[in-house]
């Protein structure tokens, strides 16, 4: 049977505010357990939440970036359930009146660009963390994460394959990071994803029974988890078995999904408006203010790179995947004025070195200025492209300027025609056998002579001049012989 896959994703993103959503505790990750936990975090009797306005502003940025309509009045609600990492016995979230609704983002698929709907974006507080003692029957609660602001981005079931799901996530992730509202760190849990997945015979309108997947902490695992789950559901249907609506956990080590214990998901959250908070009123002036402060988003940047710099869409995609990388690239272009050459160097050598060292562009020892200077030196013929490879490796390793390296290593290109002509003549003289073969028709040996000249000049000879001189002198030889 031919099946269609239907996927909807729920993404939780931690916002990068300095303080928590309902108190003034720090949101810093990695502090000693419970060192960022005040009476509000602990859910002590009588204490009250006060909303951090920054959280609303950050969430509004995401809402605008994903073309959502912002609700002029949105309301915090309590999601009630018992768990030791949830101090109040309820999570303050939004339910009936979320911050924003009805948005979308565009993703690239094999068949072109596609719109994926965003149902809603709402604000909520994160829960704490349980630490289980491996040696004793005890668990400990760390409430540092309690009250760290989150936005939940609920997507429409518009995704049709695990690859599309991963692509959608990458795009969302990219936008969040571009907006400077989330660090996007999946391992530390700043960007988390749950997936709803079902299958249906192609052409059928109704959705099949869905399962919810949790515990996938990388783009790759989201794709793997979904691929597994789709296969599992197909197997069930093809064998006449029923798909059970349930929550399943992705087991990375085994590469399978397993059902959560049903008791853990048997929740009736009893949502109701939180009487301790007043509705968040968002007027048009506030929205306009946030809109005015929005940075350029990845999609727009890609289009601008293609149009303004005349670089291929592929290059624009690679360069804009990371906001800092795009900024670096633009700095180089501004300084050297050679967009395509700059993109080759950034995407080639610079990214190769960074990837080898698992470093980000922020940690790159080669400044945009140095790279631009190096490109300038190639352009004006001071060094050859080949020498530049050596120079940039040195720049990366030592952080020195290209001028410094070229001066110290004596790498300035030989462009003195008289000197080069002597070398070329000497090489021809020194290799009579190759010369004879060349003249006998083995034209490939031209490369041999170029190589010998470059070797003799330690690569410093201007390649174009070597080519020209060789051609000229070999032709001259031929002419002389013909005369003889």
């Amino acid at each position: 049977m031919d099946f269609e896959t239907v996927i909807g994703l729920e993404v939780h993103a931690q916002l990068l505010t300095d303080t928590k959503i309902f108190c003034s505790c720090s949101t810093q990750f990695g502090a000693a357990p419970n060192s960022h936990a005040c009476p509000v975090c602990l859910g002590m009797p009588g204490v009250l939440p006060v909303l951090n306005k920054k959280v609303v502003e950050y969430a509004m940025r995401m809402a605008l970036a994903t073309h959502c309509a912002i609700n002029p009045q949105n309301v915090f609600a309590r999601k009630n359930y018992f768990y030791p990492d949830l101090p109040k016995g309820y999570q303050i979230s939004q339910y009936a009146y979320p911050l924003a609704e009805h948005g979308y983002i565009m993703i690239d698929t094999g068949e072109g660009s596609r719109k994926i709907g965003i149902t809603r974006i709402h604000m909520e507080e994160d829960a704490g963390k349980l630490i289980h003692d491996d040696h004793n029957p005890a668990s400990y609660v760390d409430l540092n994460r309690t009250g760290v602001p989150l936005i939940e981005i609920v997507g429409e079931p518009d995704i049709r394959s695990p690859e599309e799901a991963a692509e959608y996530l990458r795009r969302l992730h990219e936008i969040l990071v571009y907006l400077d509202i989330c660090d996007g760190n999946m391992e530390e849990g700043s960007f988390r994803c749950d997936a709803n997945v079902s299958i249906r015979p192609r052409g059928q309108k109704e959705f099949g029974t869905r399962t919810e997947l949790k515990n996938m902490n990388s783009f790759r695992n989201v794709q793997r988890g979904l691929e597994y789950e789709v296969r599992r559901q197909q197997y069930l249907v093809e064998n006449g078995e029923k798909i059970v609506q349930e929550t399943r956990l992705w087991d990375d080590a085994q590469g399978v999904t397993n059902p959560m214990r049903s008791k853990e998901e048997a929740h009736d959250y009893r949502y109701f408006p939180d009487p301790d908070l007043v509705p968040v009123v968002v007027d048009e002036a506030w929205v306009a203010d946030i809109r005015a402060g929005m940075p350029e988003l990845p999609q727009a940047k890609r289009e601008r790179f293609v149009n303004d710099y005349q670089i291929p869409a592929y290059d624009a995609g690679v360069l804009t995947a990371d906001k800092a990388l795009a900024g670096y690239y633009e700095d180089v272009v501004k300084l050297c004025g050679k967009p395509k050459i700059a993109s080759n160097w950034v995407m080639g050598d610079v990214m190769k070195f960074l990837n080898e060292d698992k470093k980000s562009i922020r940690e790159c020892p080669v400044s945009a200025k140095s790279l631009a200077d190096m490109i300038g030196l190639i352009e004006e013929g001071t060094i050859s492209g080949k020498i530049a490879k050596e120079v940039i490796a040195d720049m990366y390793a030592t952080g020195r300027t290209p001028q410094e390296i070229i001066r110290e290593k004596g790498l300035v290109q030989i462009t003195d025609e008289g000197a080069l002509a002597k070398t070329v003549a000497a090489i021809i003289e020194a290799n009579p056998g190759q010369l004879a073969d060349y003249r006998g028709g083995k034209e490939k040996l031209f490369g041999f002579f170029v190589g010998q000249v470059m070797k003799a000049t330690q690569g410093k000879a201007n390649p174009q001049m070597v080519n020209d001189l060789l051609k000229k002198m070999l032709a001259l030889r031929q002419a002389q012989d013909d005369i003889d």
Partner: protein
Amino acid sequence: MELHQFTIHALQEKIRNGEVSALQIAESVFSRIDAVEGRIHSYIRLMKEEAMASAARADEGIQKGDIQPLTGIPIALKDIVCTRGIPTTCGSRMLHQFVPPYNATAVEKLAAAGAIFVGKANMDEFAMGSSTETSYFGPTRNPWDLERIPGGSSGGSATAVAADECIASIGSDTGGSIRQPAALCGVVGMKPTYGRVSRFGLIAFASSLDQIGPLTKDVEDCAIMMNVLAGYDPKESTSVKAEVPDYRQFVGRDIKGWKIGIPKEYFIDGIDPEVSAAVAKTIETVRQCGASIVEISLPHTKYCVAVYYIIAPAEASSNLARYDGVRYGFRAADARDLSEMYQKTRRQGFGAEVKRRIMIGTYALSAGYYDAYYGKASQVRALIRRDFDEAFARCDVVLTPTTPTPAFKIGEKTDDPLQMYLSDIFTISANLAGIPGISVPCGFSTSGLPIGVQFLAGHFEEGKLLQAASAYEKSAAVEKRRPAL
């Protein structure tokens, strides 16, 4: 007259004149407590040591001319307001050893105004009750008849004032918990407008209804307390940034030409005839003060109790979820796993009435029932509020009985929650509408039990309440009696 029998304003004058010291007042109050507390049980905890130290400090200030609005005045705090370093139990086993690391804003304000804290007053567990019988620490008795309840949930706050075990107190009012015990104990009690007094540090029962307010010996003292308590608090999101007038200016003004609204829905069958008679007399007195009487209608009154007993338990079921034995408070011993720890802790830590309300509230919010219960109740609540908006377009204040009967016997209604709930029938509407209300004494039953009358006004019109109550208090021929203890 002994010092503990005086009002705030009388004592203030004596302090200013140098007639008495804060220590003398505190000593007088604690000697009174020694004499009567064993019979009444107003307090869960006395703070004598701290109080004496505060009084000594107050006297040093007085010597230097530093006299604040409550300097040297012994005040009782309902044990629902958090006091830093002092156990705050909420009348529950769940919190019987809980020591907050912070003060309620109201406590901070009282302390800054020079108040001397006498102790933490007894109350119904988590403020759920109308008789102070559900306290984990045992019931409080009405000073006018020790066989009877003092009302609740702020029973201890009311009896401490009535029996002169303090000069004034604060309570909290979610459905009448200040006004009802004030009426049954013959003192003045005010529930301010929702948002007027900070709820920060007030242990939540029903967050959209809870409000802290004073219980005092007369209306002027109520105004003095409100001057200290009222005001915006950045620590509370529902706190309102409305200007706070000097409430004392309303005391002693007349009410000539005022329109007093009498809602026909509040004068129903089943009201004790002596209460009816006392209120009728009050209406006559108010008329003689130069006010005119207008009959008004609050058509949704009959739904108040039903709406209240959905909204309050619903919020409570969520507010009380934090008492799970994980971080603070009571934790049951011998639990084998997490779920058992939750169950045993909450089974042993909460009393029957609290559990009943958690069950009702959980049910009302459950999937499939929300719309029919909580959703519908919220809609009717909006109608109740509109009733009052319309009423206050026609009158300055509304006058009603505070309670349908005088104080009932201890144990009389403990087995009949519905009867118990009906004792708040006249006070609940103010909480649902968010408006202020005050109860002032308006007479005694033939058996010598106090009766109260309630005035209600529009949002942030506490001044009007004080003016009406003070005008009435001045001209009423209410006999000044003291409980015979």
